[in-house]
């Protein structure tokens, strides 16, 4: 055996060895996609308008507060839409004082002057973009935390194609409804002072306020505890708009039991939160504290004494609900509402069926091709089969190495790779046959066959790679799996069809003098 041939063989063996090592054992190293393993694929849209609305509302509220403390009487502060608000009736003699207050507001808002002391503030376009971007990122991080706490193996949480879309993939999840609920609920916890209530209905609450809700107050639905053993009913509370403490100041939340041994959620606050909460409770002993979750008063206990950093949320929770709520609180509130745009669920049994069908068709394809190649090309067909087998081994190895996901269309990619592998081999063999006909020696015919075909093989593979690249760009999940499999298969095929197959020919021809090629 020529020395350089020995190196080639060694190189091929090393490549095969590395590939096998990287995918063995396959049930641990090869990741299965949702369509094979079962699970749920979700695309959500973050309603980024919510965040803009909140920003505008907060800014307007803060300015109104400042105007009050600065004793500048204005006609009113009105929020027009998600990105703008108007201050009416600023007295001419207070104009300078008013403008002095605006430094903070004007960082994010553009001011335009109207008639009669009216000023309109609009959110600057670059801030709008920034806010939307931040909102989506925040939502992404929150969802990531929640999904991690759910304990799903190998979840995917990522930005999706459009700017405000998020993709969530949860392999192996069976209780889809629960997963969706946990991901989607805002879980905005606020501790607010209850001014009046509870009232049995909204009209009663309005009547108690003299018909109008003052701008710094809010009417919220909530639960009315009727005492131990009695069913709770729904009513309305009047609470202060600005919360004393929000979920942002939470340190932890965990499921617990209340004094009647019913599931509840206890939470603790961080230092900043504890300071605010301590001051608030001290100043309001004897009044009601509204524990508000997603704009609903969960409970409104009377403050007995100063509380620093501990609290408890009670309600008609089941164990599971208490657990889920603490999970959501721990992972933080979502900055905006989410809506589902797409949902695909595959049950584990269907996934298992697909794996069976995929393996079966790959085996069937390989078998049919094998029979044909052995029948048509005899010994050379055997040569082709080895190079295709090595191609598939490399494909599996590279996929495992790259952490790529195997999907059902990915299995189709395997089958196409078999097809492409045969294609290259046939191209080479037919060329060798032609060269043999022009009556050169066997060795020369083989060499010429491979040399002449190399460029063609490169051209065809580049063209296929171009379409695979666009396919990858186009698809999500399963289709990407297919494009990736196809790409890796094509790359491996250049190596196996040209290098491996040629080395095997050379190996055969170097052993003995061959007068006639079995091709």
């Amino acid at each position, binding site marked *: 055996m020529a020395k350089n041939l020995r190196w080639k063989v060694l190189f091929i063996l090393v490549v095969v060895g590395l590939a096998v090592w990287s995918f063995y054992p396959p049930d641990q190293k090869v990741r299965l996609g949702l369509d094979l393993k079962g699970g749920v694929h979700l695309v959500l849209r973050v309603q980024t308008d919510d965040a803009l609305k909140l920003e505008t509302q907060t800014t307007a509220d803060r300015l109104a507060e400042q105007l009050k403390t600065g004793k500048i009487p204005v006609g009113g502060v009105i929020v027009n839409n998600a990105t703008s608000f108007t201050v009416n009736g600023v007295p001419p003699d207070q104009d300078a004082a008013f403008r002095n207050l605006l430094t903070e507001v004007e960082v994010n808002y553009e001011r335009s002057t109207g008639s009669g002391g009216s000023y309109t503030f609009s959110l600057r376009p670059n801030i709008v973009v920034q806010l939307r971007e931040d909102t989506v990122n925040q939502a992404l991080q929150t969802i990531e935390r929640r999904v991690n706490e759910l304990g799903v193996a190998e979840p995917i949480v990522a930005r999706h194609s459009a700017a405000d879309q998020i993709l969530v993939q949860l392999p192996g999840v069976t209780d889809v409804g629960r997963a969706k609920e946990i991901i989607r609920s805002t879980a905005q916890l606020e501790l607010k002072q209850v001014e009046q209530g509870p009232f049995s209905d909204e009209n009663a609450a309005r009547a108690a306020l003299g018909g109008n809700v003052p701008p710094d107050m809010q009417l919220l639905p909530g639960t009315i505890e009727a005492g131990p053993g009695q069913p709770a009913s729904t009513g309305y509370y009047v609470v202060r708009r600005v919360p004393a403490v929000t979920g942002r100041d939470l340190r932890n939340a965990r499921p617990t039991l209340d004094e009647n041994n019913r599931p509840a959620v206890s939470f603790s606050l961080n230092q900043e939160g504890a300071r605010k909460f301590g001051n608030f409770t001290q100043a309001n002993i004897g009044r009601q504290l509204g524990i508000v979750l997603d704009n609903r008063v969960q409970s409104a206990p009377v403050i007995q004494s100063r509380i620093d950093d501990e609290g408890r949320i009670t309600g008609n929770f089941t164990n599971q609900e208490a657990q889920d709520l603490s999970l959501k609180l721990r992972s933080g509130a979502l900055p905006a509402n989410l809506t589902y745009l797409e949902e695909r669920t595959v049950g584990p049994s269907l996934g298992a069926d697909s794996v069976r069908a995929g393996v079966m068709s790959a085996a069937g394809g390989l078998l049919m091709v094998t029979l044909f190649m052995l029948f*048509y090309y005899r010994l050379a067909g055997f040569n082709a089969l080895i190079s295709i087998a090595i191609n598939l081994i490399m494909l599996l190895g590279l996929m495992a190495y790259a952490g790529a996901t195997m999907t059902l269309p990915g299995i189709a990619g395997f089958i196409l790779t078999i097809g492409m592998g045969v294609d290259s081999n046939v191209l080479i063999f037919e060329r060798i046959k032609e060269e043999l006909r022009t009556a050169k020696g066997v060795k020369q015919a083989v060499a010429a066959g491979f040399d002449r075909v190399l460029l063609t093989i490169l051209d065809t593979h580049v063209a296929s790679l171009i*379409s695979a*690249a666009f396919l990858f760009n186009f698809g999500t999940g399963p289709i990407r799996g297919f494009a990736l499999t196809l790409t890796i298969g094509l790359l491996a095929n250049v190596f196996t069809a040209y290098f491996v197959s040629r080395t095997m020919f050379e190996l055969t021809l170097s052993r003995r003098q061959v007068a006639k090629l079995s091709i």
Partner: protein
Amino acid sequence: MALFENANYDFIKWRWHAIALSAIVIIAGFAYGIQRGIPLGIDFSGGTILVVKFEQPVTDDQVRGAIASVTAENVIQTYGDPAQNQKLIRIPQLVVEEGGALDQNARAVVDGLTKANIGKFEVISQELVGPVIGADLQRKGIYATLASIVGITIYIGLRFRFAFAIGAIAATLHDVLVTIAFLFFFGYDLSLNVVAAILTITGYSVNDTIVIFDRVRENLRTKRRDSLEKVVNESVNQTLSRTIITAGTTFLAVLALYLFGGEVLEAFAFTMLVGIISGTYSTIFIAASIAIILGNKQAKGRTASSRKAS
């Protein structure tokens, strides 16, 4: 063993017949498709698909009756092996009232099935696609197919003559259109998987074409005196056995997929099967013909202009 050894068929003679045949297939297919309404899968049109496994055998009509209150516009099919009692229920994108959830229709279907009392069942797969995603995928699918065709044209244009690039791309477009025509004839929905198969066909079809063009380029170097027609015809014949064998083996592999790949991959495999046949046909008859027609025009243009100059 050898197929088509020393083949010498006059393919080029038949080029106009071939082009006419393809045009008829494509036009008939699209006329049929448009007349019946282009069958977009829920990936593109939005909608809901549930696959439900029943404990006892049920008929399509029982299922249809159970969900009649949700919508009359439904498709009910047996899914997979009939012995497994699995039904696929597809309903279109129904108008969802403001604030309604994406899974509203799916829940209504499950409710309907529960109330109809046709035995225990389990939803084994559920696909809900909202209109936003559908429109997005439609746009992307068209974009990806066109971009892939343009990308390949540029590559061939760089590696071969321009006329060849046009020939290759005409052949590829031909295959895409013929495949879609057949999908219409056989009533397959255009789904994500089908578009993936079509994109794969663009790559595969051009493969075959490149092999022939490579040979033409090689032969043009050695046989300068022969006419373009003759060289191209000879090249097609020289590579004929290779073209037929590779198409045959790939066809066999995909046939296995079609037969054993299960419900999910059936449309994908069907698309590939049609594409492979069309790809081989277009390689032999369409790509080379168009390259010749354009190549001769170019050559005529060149002689005309050189005559003028003299």
